[in-house]
């Protein structure tokens, strides 16, 4: 679709970045992406983020772990019942520990997987729209739209005096 393209602006200041985003949003741009050297909640507010679904992954993972822990310990004990120290074949107090550890383990792993899935990591192919300075000191705003609307976007972005403003090919 050659009638659509992207614009990437790098800013030195946080407020200019946020203003740019706000303005773009007001102008009705949909596909806005922001870059920052650290998690910046102002930007997230500007883009209007809600709750991250990562927590669901964590919860499910944790519960699976608990279940697995109890199932494993109990079933193996019954499968070949051997008496030790005159204790019950299935002694729950001891198995709680196993269940607990597995809860944590599964929970943690699920969280990571969730994160990767949601934030499309790992993405090995080199970024088309990126500025190494984003990991150092600069903020970035990238917007996509049809050619005619991009002119509008370019003006809005320029208002905030970007250090650099360039055409970027369409990102993924």
């Amino acid at each position, binding site marked *: 679709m050659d009638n659509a393209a992207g614009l990437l602006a790098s800013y030195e200041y946080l*407020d200019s970045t946020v203003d740019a985003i706000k303005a773009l949003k007001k102008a009705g741009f949909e596909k806005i992406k922001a870059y920052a050297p650290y998690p910046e*909640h102002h930007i997230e507010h500007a883009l209007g983020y809600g709750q991250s679904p990562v927590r669901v992954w964590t919860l499910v993972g944790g519960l699976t772990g608990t279940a697995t822990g109890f199932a494993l310990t109990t079933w193996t004990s019954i499968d070949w019942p051997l008496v*030790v120290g005159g204790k019950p074949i299935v002694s729950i107090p001891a198995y709680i520990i196993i269940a607990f550890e597995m809860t*944590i383990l599964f929970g943690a792993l699920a969280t*990571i997987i969730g*994160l990767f899935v949601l934030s499309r*990591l790992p993405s090995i192919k080199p970024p088309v729209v*990126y500025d190494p300075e984003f990991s150092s000191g600069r903020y970035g705003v990238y917007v996509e739209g049809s050619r005619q609307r991009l002119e509008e976007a370019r003006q809005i972005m320029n208002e905030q005096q970007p250090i650099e403003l360039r055409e970027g090919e369409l990102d993924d």
Partner: protein
Amino acid sequence: MSLVPEGPTARGAVPHPDVHTYDEVNRDVLRALETPGKGWWALLAVAAAGVVLFFSAWGWQLYKGIGVSGLNSPVGWGVYITTFVFWVGIAHSGTLISAILFLFRSPWRQSIYRAAEAMTVFAVMTAGLFPLIHVGRLWHAYWLIPYPNSRFLWPNFKSPLVWDVFAITTYFTVSATFFYLGAIPDIAAARDRATGLRKKLYQVISLGWRGTDSQWHHFGKAYIFLAALATPLVLSVHSVVSWDFAMAIVPGWHATIFAPYFVAGAIFSGVAMVITLVVPIRKIFGLEAYLTTKHFDAMAKLCLLTSLIVLYAYLSEFFLAWYSGEEIERTAFWNRLFGDYWWATWTMLVCNGFVPIMLWFRRIRHSIPALFVISIFINIGMWFERYVIVVTSLHHEYEPFAWGIYRPSLTEMALMVGSFCWFGFWFLLFTRLLPPIAIAELKEVLPAPTRKKTGEAY
């Protein structure tokens, strides 16, 4: 909800008065990754030599049999288990500083937690070797892992040792993940400045991180949950380790206080070890601006607190032994103080109970050399604490006729010393390959650059 409370100045004092711009942070921190100096190579050589010693000693033991140790009956556990518990303990403060302080939003966390977490990971890697070293038939040790096998046999989940297997492996996995996750944005930063082979490497391990809004968004959530999971884990792992002893009926082991006692001890030794490690890093890489006395002061206070808990545990152990009226228990603890191993016990008491008292003084807390020395004392003391618990309890048990004496052998010493080199080896590599200080998070507590200097506060 945001990662930092209302701006950097929320907790009053600015943690890094001498750091101003984000670029500065990148420059200073990433400088550590540049070509190392002679000192580093020298240290690495020493560590490598130690690793060789470590594995040759282990090989020798495997070839001859566990008998090359000084272990005997009644003392079936000795230096190996002592060192195991020691390293597990060390492993603790890493995740603690990282996770708990993160949840509590402690402002002095950012600049030390990366090193602390690295310490955790490597310490667990070291600790994990010792149960393997100390078993009689290493080639069957995998029987402790539950897996479907043609014998229809499973491990005994009632045994604290199996709990250990689960606790330690979980702890290693989670803290390694936590460590890596936190490092990803900084690796990306390193990537953007590195060249050549390093760039390739970082490209891969940064997983193509670009710091986009959505990435940061999910990253933050995931990080919080990991921290939330890691915190109880930290507490559980050393409790489980303590139950290796508390679940037994050996006088001197069989005590309900053990779990909290061990956790406190672990944090104590862990923080001490962090100080021991961070002091040189700060000096060598010139990170004074990032590791300020404020940080050391905070860590010293944490040391002081935990040392008090540990001392309390010691005293209450002795008191309860006396108060219980249980003759065998009394004898056991009397024997600790004045028996064959009195020297170990007193070393422990002095290093862990009395030396840290100096930390009450502000001047000492603010003198980095002093802290360095004290931290080393604490490390020694904590090793001896485990030695006392393991050995003195075992060598005088219920049956007087079966009492015995244990003398560590050279092989055991070699493995103990070697383990420090093994740990050091990995830590040295870390200092050169990963940003030793959390770049991204540090920026969170720096004032964000704004155009409207007098504009609304961000």
